[in-house]
């Protein structure tokens, strides 16, 4: 796999800003940066594992039952992540707990399994999973930073505005998620257009 296709997964074909996949967890968990990081890394781990496994067993899976087979593989990894997060990062799990099982139905994961891992080699699939996962994490972090700074006046829990500027509560609420994502996406497209011309 060429390096360029790996970086393409992160920026050019970014799962959220470009493909607009997996928006449900994106909008739901990005109230603080630490949530975004946690969700991003959990999804990246699942993506890397499921892509690797799907790609290595693709020869044995008949085409007609491939979707249920992928879902079982993905769901198993998600449950493993869920258990280990609960045991070792209990505080983070208390916040993200509700959204971890939902990684199973995150379209990025099934999307990469179906459109990439089932057609490419193990190493390429692993890198593809890693790239897409990092792209997802990056997008979550950008969105979460914007929302935490504007909505709570802090970043990673540390106060930034020092209470001088009142926080705009709207940004930690669901409508704020849509508004922030909309502006970020506009910015992303604007930058892309400028760099391409």
């Amino acid at each position, binding site marked *: 796999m060429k390096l360029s296709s790996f970086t393409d997964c992160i920026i050019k074909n970014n799962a959220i800003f470009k493909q607009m996949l997996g928006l449900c967890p994106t909008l739901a968990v990005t109230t603080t940066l630490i949530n975004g990081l946690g969700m991003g890394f959990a999804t990246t781990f699942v993506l890397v594992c499921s892509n690797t496994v799907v790609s290595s*067993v693709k020869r044995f899976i008949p085409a*007609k039952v491939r979707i249920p*087979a992928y879902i*079982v593989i993905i769901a198993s990894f998600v449950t493993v992540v869920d258990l280990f997060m*609960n045991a070792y990062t209990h505080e983070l799990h*208390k916040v993200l707990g509700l959204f971890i099982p939902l990684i199973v139905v995150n379209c990025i994961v099934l999307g990469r399994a179906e459109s990439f891992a089932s057609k490419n080699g193990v190493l390429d699939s692993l890198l593809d999973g890693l790239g897409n996962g990092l792209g997802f994490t990056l997008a979550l972090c950008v969105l979460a930073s914007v929302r935490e700074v504007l909505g709570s006046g802090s970043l990673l829990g540390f106060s930034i505005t020092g209470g001088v500027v009142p926080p705009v509560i709207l940004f930690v*609420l669901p409508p704020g998620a849509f508004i922030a994502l909309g502006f970020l996406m506009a910015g992303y497209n604007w930058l892309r257009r400028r760099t391409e011309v």
Partner: protein
Amino acid sequence: MKNNILRYSLVLGLITIISASILAYSYDLTKDRIKEAIRQDFLAGLKSVLPDFDNQPDSDAIITDNATVYLAKNGGAVVGYAVEAVSMKGYGGEISVIVGAKPDATIYRITVVRHTETPGLGDKIKAAAFTSLFSGGSLTGKYAVKRDGGDIDSFSGATISPRAVCEAVNNANKLLYEVICETK
């Protein structure tokens, strides 16, 4: 055709068996740590609502028909009681509080252990500024937000969350009062 169905089922069956084994192993690997993490969480909650104690309140508990009341002892004497109570009427669902009481039937402190209230609005029920409103109150008093004719100040933008906390506290107080009366 028939052969194919057999093959599909075998492949799927094999995948699920392998997955189940991995899951069972992971569960076994993590279950003790998860149990301990949940217990530590709960103990931290108890610690924040009870006066200084030197026992393990979760093993020194009175189990009544309706609830488990945790006893805090210091030097052998009972210095506090705590109970967990739940209200289903939160804005985001269940709100769970632990209320700690002193032997003279007054509230020592309360803490919100679990909730799914809106960040930035309803989640202020966790703040000390709100939970301290209950401290020192009598166990026999009824607690309600100002809008409902009580004297608990709800904060701007949210009435439902504090109202649910009041309900949970009232439930807890009843349980605590019964146990304190019985043990006296």
